[in-house]
């Protein structure tokens, strides 16, 4: 039961790499369609800071040459692809001599942590609330409370973030207003540091959870109602099983399957949604990095960060896909 054939694995991996290639190409093209270029933007910024930069035109030309921006686009594309394959994302143009890999390496764990933490919470809470909404034995009070808790579902994460920040960060001052950990602290594996990370990550994670879990609760409720009408539910009732056992072994177990698929599909959107939340909280993750990269028109950094986010999402989807036979016995990836 639930095995995976080599044939399927190969096909699935091909799709995975195809996704990455298409994504990499799009990321290469899109920033180049915008007017302006990174070197000019950088020099302008230097000018703004220093008042006057001597020989700015020469500097621009020199740097353009150095980053290969004067080569024809297809040469740049081939070089970019070659570098990608070797895992070299290049220098961050606007922050030379930092490499993109360095910056991404520093930011990625924070985003994975934040989005992972938020996903864990909204998926659990959403499905649990949805299940309780549909269950006939749920106390009346709970059934009234749950829909009320979902009012945030209709606002974008950006606004939820601002609202939380204003209320809990500025007014009540219960939670820190920005950063993933206290300024000046060194990332290290101590309990104190981990607690402070959780403390700092709570508001941004909540901003994502609040606007997302209602969607999952409603989806789950719909699935539960469908399951409730199944023949095996009548039999479960006739069998005199304990109600709680029926809830999780008969109802939730079956209703959760489409939810897992939906989760796999929504991971990309989720990461995208976290960008703005990170920016609001000045959270030093991929979102903030992408945001500054776009502002600085740093082609390499935009490409690098976007590419890494796409790799992460595609990888998450791949993992959920391959796990499917484990959660649904009817699905076998063993081939005919």
């Amino acid at each position, binding site marked *: *039961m639930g095995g995976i054939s080599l044939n399927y694995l190969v096909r699935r991996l091909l799709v995975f790499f195809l996704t990455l290639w298409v994504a990499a190409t799009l990321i290469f093209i899109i920033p180049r369609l915008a007017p302006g270029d990174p070197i000019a933007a950088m020099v302008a910024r230097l000018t703004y800071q220093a008042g006057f930069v001597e020989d700015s035109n020469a500097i621009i030309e020199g740097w353009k040459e150095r980053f290969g921006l004067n080569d024809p686009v297809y040469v740049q594309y081939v070089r970019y692809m070659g570098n990608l394959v070797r895992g070299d994302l290049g220098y961050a143009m606007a922050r030379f001599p930092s490499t993109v890999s360095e910056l991404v390496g520093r930011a990625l764990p924070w985003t994975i942590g934040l989005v992972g933490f938020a996903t864990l919470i909204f998926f659990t809470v959403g499905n649990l609330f949805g299940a309780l909404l549909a269950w006939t034995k749920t106390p009346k009070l709970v059934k009234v409370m749950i829909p009320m808790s979902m009012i945030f579902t209709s606002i974008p994460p950006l606004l939820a973030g601002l609202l939380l920040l204003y209320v809990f960060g500025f007014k009540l001052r219960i939670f820190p207003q920005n950063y993933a950990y206290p300024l000046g602290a060194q990332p290290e594996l101590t309990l104190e540091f981990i607690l402070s990370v959780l403390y700092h990550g709570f508001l941004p994670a909540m901003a994502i959870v609040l606007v997302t879990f209602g969607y999952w609760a409603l989806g789950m409720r719909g699935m539960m109602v469908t399951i409730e009408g*199944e*023949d*095996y539910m*009548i*039999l*479960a*009732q*006739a*069998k*005199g*099983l*304990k*109600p709680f*056992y029926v809830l999780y*072994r*008969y109802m939730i*177990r*079956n209703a959760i*399957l489409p939810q897992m698929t939906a989760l796999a599909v929504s991971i990309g959107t989720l990461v995208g949604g976290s960008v703005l939340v990170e920016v609001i909280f000045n959270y030093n993750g991929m979102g903030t990095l992408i945001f500054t990269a776009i502002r600085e028109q740093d082609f390499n950094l935009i490409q690098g960060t976007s590419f890494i986010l796409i790799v992460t999402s595609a990888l998450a989807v791949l993992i959920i896909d391959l796990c499917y036979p484990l959660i*649904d*016995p*009817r699905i076998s990836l063993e081939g005919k």
Partner: protein
Amino acid sequence: MSQTRSNGSERVVLNVEKLRIHYATPQGEVIAVSDISFDLYEGETLGLVGESGCGKSTTAYGILQLVQPPGYIVHGSIKVDGTEVLDLSEEELRSFRWTGLSLIPQGAMNSLNPTMRVKDQIIDVIEAHEGKQTDKKALRERIYDLFAKVGLPNRIYNMYPHELSGGMKQRVCIAMGVALHPTVVIADEATSALDVVVQRIVAQTLIQVKDEIGVSLIVIGHDMGLLAQIVDRIAVMYAGKMVEIAPVESIYAEPLHPYTKLLIDSIPSIKERKPLRITEGITHDPRNPPSGCIFRLRCPFAWEHCAEVEPLPIQVDRKHEVACHMFDEQFEERRAHAFATTANP
């Protein structure tokens, strides 16, 4: 085959008294089951027949306390071995289920949980009523034993429902239904979804298991031919009413109620082609049943009295009741009077 048993025990294991079930709809109450009363004797197999929508499944689900909203039991009494089912508390009912009354469901195809192994679905009902089983080996033997009773191979023990054929799923449901030796088993169109060959084999398995374990059985169906071969008595339902209940040999030899007659005439014969007679007339609106006899709109013998007075079940023989004015002792007298008055205005 089964007819020899019909004179068996006199002990009543299930007594249904004036059971009434309504479905609440925005347009009014649909009367699905209307004051049905009958007894089921120990070791007996009772067939419940009638056309679609006559309330036979609703009756079964009413007895099992499984009527799904918007349906509800208006009144009645259901006694299993003297226990009033309708008076049980929720927890009492839960533990009474499957040990007192068990169900072999209508749609065996979808009646098993698709994400649980066959063994786990039988184990869960055993553990829900007998507590956690510590001796896993004995438990496995017990399930193999159930499999053997219904003719299932042991290799399906670890399988999922989607790996079984329709007939096998139905057998799993039978094995599950008798796992706790319930007092009464209700088989709700247990064979309807199967093809005729498998249908017959499964029906025979059902009777075999029933005899082996010694439970009482209610078989719901619309296939009069199949039922004739496996049941001891037949109860005929029409529009929520039980119109006749009789031993199988007398109902086929001499059906009394006009509806029963039509129903038996509807069994196709391979010797002669005959037109279907049952289509005459229409069924009334179940929200607004006609006065008097429920069947009078379609009955070829209906007369004034049928519209005025509702016929009550009349005992015509041992274990044989019919609800029709024609079998009333005063029938001839009444009709003579009626025709006399219409003849001389």
